[in-house]
């Protein structure tokens, strides 16, 4: 589904990703872990098409297509979704209006009909329940004045609505207390399916107690230095990142 080969990317003069390889198959959940500054968020941003990153080498194909050649909205329309680490507040932009426009844009590109108001509301209420969100959220501006937990839940709610093929969760656990974390993780787990892949970017192992990954990768200094099963996350939790970074250096 997603194939990243030898990816190098700069922010300004600094090279952040230094030859990154990653293969994600359908239905797989990959965790990407790493210390601060290892390039985790850069990877998430480059994949979703955010400005400010220059790809200098390598390739990314998504379902056989050159992902890097696509505009951010085209990536979304083809089934890529980024759950933001810091969801952006959009004062004055009504949530319902936004969600409907986003959903219809994605549906249209999938060759589906736009939803009428009634079916849209029905769908939205069903998805809200999964995330334990109150429907008063629909009347508010997108993320404006939301608590940290509400913002993160709103991200997963949007994911539930847009039904992506590949979801990238960028530090979705950051800033969440344990109850909120559980709600978010339940929401994510409810969306797991044999066709939907996920990349879970996180600093801490904690989230992976709730969202069990098929594969765990350690990202350090812009490269994946180690990959393994879910037990790798536990080992990291126990020994810290220093252990694996040291081992890499010794090798």
């Amino acid at each position, binding site marked *: 589904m997603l194939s990243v080969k030898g990816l190098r990317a700069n922010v300004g003069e600094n090279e952040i990703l230094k030859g990154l390889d990653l293969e994600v198959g359908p239905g797989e959940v990959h965790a990407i872990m790493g210390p601060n500054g290892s390039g985790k968020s850069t990877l998430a941003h480059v994949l979703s098409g955010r400005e400010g990153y220059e790809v200098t080498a390598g390739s990314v194909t998504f379902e056989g297509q050159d992902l890097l050649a696509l505009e*951010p909205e085209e990536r979304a329309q083809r089934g890529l979704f980024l759950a933001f680490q810091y969801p952006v507040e959009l004062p*004055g932009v*009504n949530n319902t209006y*936004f969600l409907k426009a986003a959903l219809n844009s994605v549906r249209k590109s999938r060759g589906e009909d736009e939803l009428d108001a009634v079916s849209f509301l029905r769908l939205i209420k069903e998805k809200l329940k999964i995330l334990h969100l109150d429907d008063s959220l629909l009347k508010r501006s997108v993320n404006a004045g939301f608590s940290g937990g509400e913002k993160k839940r709103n991200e997963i709610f949007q994911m539930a609505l847009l039904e992506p093929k590949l979801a990238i969760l960028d530090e979705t656990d950051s800033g969440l207390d344990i109850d909120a974390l559980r709600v978010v993780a339940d929401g994510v787990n409810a969306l797991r399916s044999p066709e939907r892949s996920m990349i879970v970017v996180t600093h801490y192992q904690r989230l992976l107690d709730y969202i069990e990954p098929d594969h765990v990768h350690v990202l350090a200094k812009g490269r994946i230095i180690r990959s393994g099963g879910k037990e790798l996350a536990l080992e990291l939790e126990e020994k810290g990142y220093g252990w694996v970074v040291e081992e890499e250096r010794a090798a």
Partner: protein
Amino acid sequence: MNGTAPASFETWLTARPDDRTGAGLDWLEARRRSALDQVREHGVPSAKQEAWRYTSLKRLLEQGFAQVDDTVTALRLDDIEELLIPELDSHRVVMVNGRYTPSLSALGDLPHGVRVTGLRALLANDPDALRERINGVAGERQPLFAALNTAGLDDGLVVLLDRGAVLERPIELIHLSVGMDEPRVAQPRHLVAIEAGAQATLVERYVSLGASLYCTNSVLELSLGRDAVLKHDRIQEESPNAFHITGLYLSQEENSRYQGTNIGLGGAWARTDLFTRFQGEHAECDLLGLYLAGDRQLTDYHIDVHHAVPSCTSRETFKGILYGKGRAVFDGRVVVAKNAQKTDAAMSNKNLMLSENAEIDTKPQLEINADDVKCSHGTTVGQIQPEMLFYLRSRGLSAPIARRMLCMGFAGEVIDALHADALRERVSEQVGQRLESAPLT
């Protein structure tokens, strides 16, 4: 440009016939003469005058407008159907080129104590009802364009609410401009008096048929008695070639409440002056504005709020979206007199620039002469935030749609202040259309 521009705006008055409105009323003639004298004194204001520092009058002067008061009678309701808002259940007054046009109006049943009529008709039938009203709020000494309006006084909307009268449905004034063979200026004079405890909603809409060149120079005198409430929505959608001038004079007695939402979308050249005078304590004045300006458009707002008495509240919230080579001016002034303690005033002007070629000159000012007050002002001039744009695009929305959505979000605070859904929809649609065709550089 070619040196043939007239030396004053007096020419606007030359085409008036002798049988003008209210001829023979000595008091009215005296006011007209005085106004004409003032027009002559004003001459053509230069850029050295603060009020005209950023806005040139040259283009306006060069048009050679004349005030023609022929009534346009050929229009039928079908012709203006696209301009009507059927969902707005209103007492509708239609004026065409500055003249009240009963055949297009639909006043419906008015409650007891409410009078809605044309100025010209009332001057013919009951001039005494207007003697205290004309210049009653604007005063005898007037700025240039108000003086021109007074000197050329012809017709307008008159709304009088007696003490305690309550209007459930809004009064909707549709001021329609229709192109004529020669460049024409209409100078409607609207008088609205809401007496003690009375409540009303007024909607003013300035619209046109086609893209004709004309000028509207309107003056409104609004007075709110004690405890009176007026909600006032003004939507300017003049033709892209039009000149639009408004002078709004507001006087508020004790504990009265006024909310005015000014939407400025059309016109090639638009100037709005808003004056608020508090006459009694604990009155509230909430002024909101949204303006758009694109290529070949200038829009200029001057706001002058005078806290002459204690314990009044005023809010001035103006937002602008500028694109292409659009230009806007915001000159807001709040004056707090020495004895106006406990004044609460907050003025803000925020501008969203969609292009590097657009220009805004913004100047909010506070002049505070009292020591126990709460006053603030703020200005922002900014662009669309890239991270906001990216957030929307990452959800599958194209860049133009995302940009428009953010603009509508920015404008929402003002559009939401309109009193009816039908108006909010109309304005949102109009704003959306303008932004859709807006160049992005």
